[in-house]
């Protein structure tokens, strides 16, 4: 093979590899990126069941129910406008409690309830991941709104 041709071939191959990777990445991203929803978003926009998403809001007061097996819990996430029933099997984080912010990763079922695979909660003020902090902040302000409305 001539030198010029070889360089051109290699450049084209590299380009093809990068375009291929970008296409692969784009298609996988469309399917797999987990979007963030509040209960009101979820009701308004509708989330297809089974898609992995994050649900953020407040744990409704008095809503936590522990099942007899000791490792499954059910609770309700609210944002003051809508509520979603959530079930979770696993060990909840230390700062998971009623009337406090929560972000759950998981998917919706066809009946509109949410099955969480992971529960993120406040670790500690100083080391909270910004994304969670943002969600918590939204939840906290919603909480204040809800209290104002309750009055």
């Amino acid at each position, binding site marked *: 093979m001539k030198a010029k041709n070889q360089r051109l071939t290699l450049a084209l191959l590299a380009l093809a590899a990068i375009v291929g990777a970008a296409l692969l990445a784009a298609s996988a991203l469309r399917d797999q*990126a987990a979007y963030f929803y509040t209960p009101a978003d979820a009701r308004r926009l509708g989330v297809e069941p089974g898609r992995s998403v994050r649900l953020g809001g407040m744990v409704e007061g008095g809503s936590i129910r522990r099942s007899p097996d000791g490792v499954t819990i059910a609770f309700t996430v609210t944002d003051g406008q809508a509520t979603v029933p959530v079930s979770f099997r696993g060990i909840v984080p230390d700062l998971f409690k009623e009337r406090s912010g929560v972000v759950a990763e998981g998917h919706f079922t066809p009946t509109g309830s949410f099955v969480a695979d992971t529960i993120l909660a406040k670790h500690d003020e100083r080391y909270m991941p910004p994304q969670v902090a943002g969600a918590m902040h939204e939840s906290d302000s919603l909480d204040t709104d809800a209290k104002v409305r309750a009055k």
Partner: protein
Amino acid sequence: MTAELGLAALWLAAALALLQLALAAMALAGREELLNGVRPVAVVQAVLALLAFAVLIRLFVVVDLSVELVALNDASTKPLLYRFAGAWGNHEGSMLMWVAILGLSGACVALLERRLPERTLVATLGTQAAIGLGFYAFLLFASNPFQRLVPAPAEGQGLNPLLQDPGLAFHPPTLYLGYVGLSIAFSFACGALLTRQVDAALARAMRPWVLGAWVFLTLGITAGSYWAYYELGWGGWWFWDPVENASLMPWLAATALLHSVAVLATRDSLRAWTVMLAVVAFSMSMIGTFLVRSGILTSVHAFAVDPRRGAFILVLLALYIGGALALFAARAGTVQEGRTFEPVSREGSLVANNLLLSAILGIVLVGTLYPLLAEAVTGEKLSVGPPYFNAAAGPLALLLVTIMVAGPLLRWRRDRLAALGRRVALPAGLALAALIALLVAAPGVRLLPLLGLVLAAGVALGSLAPLWGRNLRRTPMFTWGMVIGHLGVAVALAGMASESAFTRETLVALAPGQTAQVGPWRIRFDAVEPIAGPNWTALEATLQADRGGAPLLLKPQARFFPSPPTETSEAAIATRWDGQLYTVIGKGDEAGRWQLRLWWKPFVTLIWLGGALIAVGGVLSLLGRVRRERRAAERLAWL
């Protein structure tokens, strides 16, 4: 006074970096008499940067609370190890370590590098100084670690308990040595472009430096993976967390560079591409630094959100990466055409290796940056997780590993497919046997882990194949390096696939005296007792694990740290030759039961053993190359 000494050393180091850059520029512009001045300046600059870092460590060890950084991140109640390692368990301290290692890298080049033409070496050290200058400015103007705090508080705020682990003493320094060590390859590339010296000799000079940085990077990533595995208590060994990706991306680029540098050094092909990769590898390190240090990510590593710092690093990134790429664009045309080769050849397989590694790098980069860009553009918060990375990068990685079997068995320049077929027959046969055995013995294994196990068997044999028919005692050390490095990939792959295919998990709530089953293990829950450590209290469970033979005792803890107030979970892990038993204690309930999460992970330890083997392979290659060159130099001197 100590803090001011550190600050003064930092300012002086910055001034010397400026001097080093100016000297190099003038020397290259024609003042030949200045050529000899650059090396000593680089060494002194490194000494001053290291001194500043040593001062910071001292401030942390003696807990000097009049320094703001120490007051925010240290506490006299912490054990000595975490006061020491805590010096880099925060933003400013870790940036100072970054810069100190950058200085150290430049000094090593100045002291040890004798093969490069002197002008290229001076251009290299000039580039190194230019990088240093930007990061010194970042430290001095946006992240001063020696800032005083008046009045000094009575006690410090302590260190994030998740970081209070021996891993903190080992993982960040190793990772940074690799990360920042790649700056040498970057500077070599820029230096060679500036002086128009891109050729096989450049690659031979660059190779040991790339190998060294790559070994540290490999060790750092492996250690970080094991640390996350046992510390986070989630039983996972890789989370595709953006901070992990930030260390994986330079590794992928450096691995590609390692292989293309071999082609350039041996066959004088792929000149421009190798130089490009050297630029990309360290650019990935800098992008990683930006991701981690700007605090824009969702991760435990994001210490604080400070947009000013983010903007500062972003400008540095644009300057250095943009500058290097512009230099490349301007000079790529002057890079002489290298030698050609046939598609079926060692070079061909290494090109395939490079393309696949680059494609994987692209996929990881897109997945890591996409959420940030999406949020910046549309305000939509989204996260890209393991499903994306596994689906997109997994198949390419398996293809890459397949090519790894064939590559070392191909001849340079030109080979025949039929001959290759005969050479890979045995590894392919073993892979087929493994496939049949798995389908019969363990049906229901998912496709990706199944392919992983099958390939691991083939690669393990294939990686040893280059030794066949050789006199083992006369086989060069760098060939052993390649063989062991590739074997390490097979071992790690086997561990990953086995963990993914055969892990058993049990989640139960037990009262004392009750038992649970996980995989072959019968676990009896005996008791929960409160205990106290140096700066924490904990609830500790006592578990007895039994699968016939002597029972094992496991004691997972739920720890509480008062400063800062945090709870962490300390998993108890029992290692057996065939895997690990991993236990975590959760919450207690009113009925006196405790939540327990139990995993049996067959052969999971192979993941990190493989990582260590890969690093050993790198060390052998490095030593082998250096030794061969020294012998060649001696022969030349004797003639």
